């Protein structure tokens, strides 16, 4: 997996790409998030526009990352989500747990109007 990182103020924008199908490939994602949190960055935007599909391992890594950033007072918001990925989130009932935003800019801006998530 490749993670391209861009910091905009106090928001980290991560663009992921790669096959994202199995354990060894997706592990680095959560490690990356943990390092960002350790460096004081807990507001994350993850852009999936370069990814068509991912496996359950990636989903687990994303929810674990979400819990890591929320515990640090931040959030993890998704952009560039394809229909297929959205369907995974819907079937697993996680679509309401993650905030999905249309574009990266809007996702970054959403942290101003809604700095933290409201846990339901």
């Amino acid at each position, binding site marked *: 997996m490749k993670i391209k990182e861009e910091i905009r103020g106090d928001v980290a924008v991560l663009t992921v790409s790669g096959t994202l199908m*199995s354990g060894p490939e997706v592990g680095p994602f959560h490690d990356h998030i943990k390092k960002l949190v350790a460096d004081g960055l807990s507001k994350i935007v993850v852009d999936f526009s370069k990814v068509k599909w991912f496996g*359950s391992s990636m989903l*687990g890594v994303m929810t*674990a990352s979400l*819990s890591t950033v929320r515990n640090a007072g931040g959030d993890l918001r998704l952009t560039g989500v394809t229909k297929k990925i959205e369907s995974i989130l819907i079937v697993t*009932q996680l679509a309401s747990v993650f905030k999905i935003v249309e574009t990266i800019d809007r996702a970054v801006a959403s942290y101003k109007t809604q700095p933290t998530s409201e846990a339901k």
Partner: protein
Amino acid sequence: MNPTVLIVDDEPDILDSLALSLEMDYEVLTATNGLDGLDLLAKHQVALIISDQRMPKMTGVEFLAKAQEVSPNSVCMMLTGFADFDAIIEAVNKGQIYRYISKPWEPADLEIDVRQAIERYEMQSSLTRRMSELQALCEIGATITSVLDSELVIQKILSGIVDTLGFDRAYLMAVDEKDEILRSAGSYGVSGEALTFLNQLEYDLKRDDVGVVLTVKENRPILVEDVDDTHFQLDNEAIMKVGFRSFVTAPLHAGNRRIGVLVADRSGAGERVTEHDQNLLVGFANQAAIALENARLYEEAVEKKRLEEEVGVAAEIQKRLLPTTLPVLDGYEIAAMTRPSRGVSGDYYDVVDMGDGRVWIAVGDVSGKGIPAALTMATLRTLFRAQVEHNLAPADMMKRIGDGLFQATSPEVFATFCFGLLDVATHTFTYVNAGHPYPVLARASGETVELDGVGIPVGMDPMLWHGPYEARQVALASGDVLVIFSDGISEAGASDEDMFGEERILDVVANHREQGALGVQCAVCDAVDVFMKGQPMDDDLTLVALSVK
């Protein structure tokens, strides 16, 4: 030391005259007869033998024939008078004599002949030495590549460098690509403090200031004839502690893989390594690298086989965690199947007959694949079966299973899970769903229903979603078929553009509804097989069907 010349002549005057001419430039040995000559040959390394032909008891030709047996590398020259020509020609033709010196000789000619004879000797010796080195290389090459144990190979390589190639000490450092370090892997001929120091020596591969690291990274040998007079950057502490004076390094590479580096030294006073030594070590290193790579690949193959066998055993154990028989119920039929994609599976299903007309049916799918998922599957089963014993509402059961799984696994691990309670007396099915694909219900009336639910998969951090799970209930009537399946079925072929999908499942179930639970199960499996066209599945398939008679 000057080369040695042996002169054999029964006439003392000739002997003295020749000796005088030669003793400035060479070590001269003299004998008055063949037997004494042979005696001296046995005790000294002689480059050139000059012999008279006409001698009592043993002629020159006879002597030289015997001399060649004792010292085959010595070059022979014969002193002749006019009458000896036949004998000389015979000896020359037999290849025993390099040249003849006719009496009386011109001192200038003699000097040239002797010098050329000595050169010839030195050339032949050098050739012979190289031949035996090549042979030694071949032999240790054969030895080390015939051994498949890594530790043993390293020892044979290092002892080969010292015992066969003639260096004083040998040392091997191996690359650890994961930690990016060059680490000590063995030595020979080293003892005491030097050994202790060498054993713990490691270098970061990012360094550019240490000879052995450069050898590995640049794939070229380094020759340090004298540590006090070299332009190479060396680790001075190592030089001092191990007592390196003159050494050579050779890289160990197999294809693209960097294996490590060999170091061989000459530590005796005044001894130095030469470029010839470097060539020798490099030649050997090529074989050594192959031997090391062979041993490593063999060990990997053995390990792989062992793991495959373990997975086989794990699969057998896991089979026993699934129901071996399904309950026979009045008015209902239950069928179930699971097909792991890789020996062991992350899918779980269960049918628990409480004995009082209530039967639990469950299907779960652990994230990931293979052995890790299979282990979590076992945990999920334990948690579910424990909850089944208490008399809690299904929604509460799911919450507790979720908390239990979260605590028992790492945060990235979760399972989608759907279970329900069939009440035979009331013909109802009360179910709860945690992120699992919605089960389908095909009614006798022709209606198809998706049994939806609310709730995230179990095993995720409870702080992400506070719940509650919501249990739902459906009433069952004669002819109805209910199917709970794992996403291995709905997502079959997902990597391509089209996947099997829930629609197809609904269709197949509805079309085969009248065949009952087992019929529907087979129909769905067949449909998936047809859809997949023989391509391997990359997820586990699981299905439980319940039909009302």
